[in-house]
């Protein structure tokens, strides 16, 4: 690893000033499970590493009363799934947080880092899409909000411009009769990168038989994780049955535009996008029905 300076500021405005230091390249550090590998193995260079874990805004994790939850961008996966009150409301997020890496990685890896690293196969992102999350972004010149499905622009590239950081994720309150799920396909049982992934959420009618609204996010089948808006538009109002799940799978396959690499062929990823859409929608519906 090449030499760099390290700062661990304890207030946000100081962190943002450091990040905007003229003529210096800066890298924010959350759990380091991507960044440290990149600095060590891929020759990524930077003049200064700004550790975000002493910032209250980045480590907050709290309920906003009836208005949903806020997760600071640097909160590690294990802290997320250990919160029982949160877990009961955001099952898709919990699925994703519980399968990233092993325990040692979950104790460090944050959802903010997962998003900012912008891997097409990042596991948190389809689940965040299913849960309709918005990203709170800040720089020295102000703050802005970005919908999570618009956050990644291409592999490794996000909407963040120089000097901007992701501060937190805003999760809307989950309505009644809500369910969600995330699944990925990997050739092993754990500790691998998704060949494909899908996150789904649904809101069911009072009798639990009709899907009032739904969202599906796909991972590893395009340069960025995708929201499949056509599924939300075409399948709302449909019955909870295998025909609806199969229709969703067909639409998902038509949006999958994957590459072939060592993990999987393009045709396999297209197929998996369908299978995982079907399965996660079904689990999301079962979870919503269980809460009726």
């Amino acid at each position: 690893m090449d030499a760099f300076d390290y700062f661990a500021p304890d207030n946000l405005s100081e962190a943002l000033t450091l990040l905007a230091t003229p003529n210096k390249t800066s890298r924010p550090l959350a759990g380091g499970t991507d960044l440290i590998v990149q600095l060590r193995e891929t020759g990524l260079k930077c003049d200064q590493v700004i550790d975000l874990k002493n910032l209250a805004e980045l480590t907050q994790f709290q309920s906003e009363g009836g208005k949903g939850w806020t997760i600071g961008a640097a909160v590690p996966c294990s802290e997320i799934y250990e919160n029982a009150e949160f877990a009961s409301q955001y099952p898709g997020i919990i699925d994703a947080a519980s399968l990233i890496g092993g325990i040692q990685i979950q104790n460090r890896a944050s959802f903010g880092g997962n998003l900012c690293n912008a891997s097409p196969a990042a596991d948190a992102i389809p689940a965040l899409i299913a849960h309709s999350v918005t990203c709170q972004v800040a720089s020295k010149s102000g703050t802005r909000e970005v919908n999570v499905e618009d956050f990644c622009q291409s592999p490794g590239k996000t909407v963040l411009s120089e000097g901007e950081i992701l501060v937190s994720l805003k999760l809307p309150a989950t309505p009644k009769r809500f369910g969600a799920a995330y699944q990925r396909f990997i050739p092993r049982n754990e500790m691998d990168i998704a060949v494909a992934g899908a996150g789904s959420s649904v809101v069911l009618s009072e009798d639990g038989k009709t899907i009032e609204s739904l969202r599906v996010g796909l991972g590893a089948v395009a340069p960025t994780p995708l929201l499949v808006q056509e599924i939300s538009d075409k399948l709302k109002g449909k019955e909870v049955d295998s025909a609806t799940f199969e229709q969703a799978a067909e639409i998902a396959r038509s949006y999958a535009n994957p590459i072939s690499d060592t993990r999987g062929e393009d045709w396999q990823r297209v197929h998996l996008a369908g299978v995982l859409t079907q399965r996660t929608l079904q689990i999301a519906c079962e979870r919503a029905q269980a809460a009726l």
Partner: protein
Amino acid sequence: MKTYLKTTINGEDKELLCEPRQSLLDVLRDELELTGTKEGCNNGNCGACNIMLDGRLVNSCMVLALEAQGKQVETIEGVADTEGLHPLQEVFLEEAALQCGICTPGFILSAKSLLEKNPNPTEDDVRLWLAGNLCRCTGYDKIVRAVLESAKRLSESPQSEVAS
């Protein structure tokens, strides 16, 4: 530029100078000569470098040493006490749950953190928890059995009855 680091390792305060690019693993092994913590992959996949940082299991190769500023670090050197080996260490020896031993400190730390959270794990719980620890020698079975046996001994020991 060397930077001042103050951290607590196995209950002892340590002060030293280190470079920002040094990992906690580098500092433990090269500066503090705590070589019980091993380097396998140096990229987060094998768990040989496992330590506890403020009560959480982490890969020390994936932590910058300066991130340990003001924190509590526990390494394999802190697992046995003056009374003797930890039950996990005893059972690993008795059941021959190691061959070359490079992975063992990581497995002990990882298993210890599991038993602290879940004193009565099933075999599946153990296998899932240990997924981030690789062993090239044993084929894992003896390790898993050793962890299950340690859990049994710990829950039968009078000390844990007092604690519960």
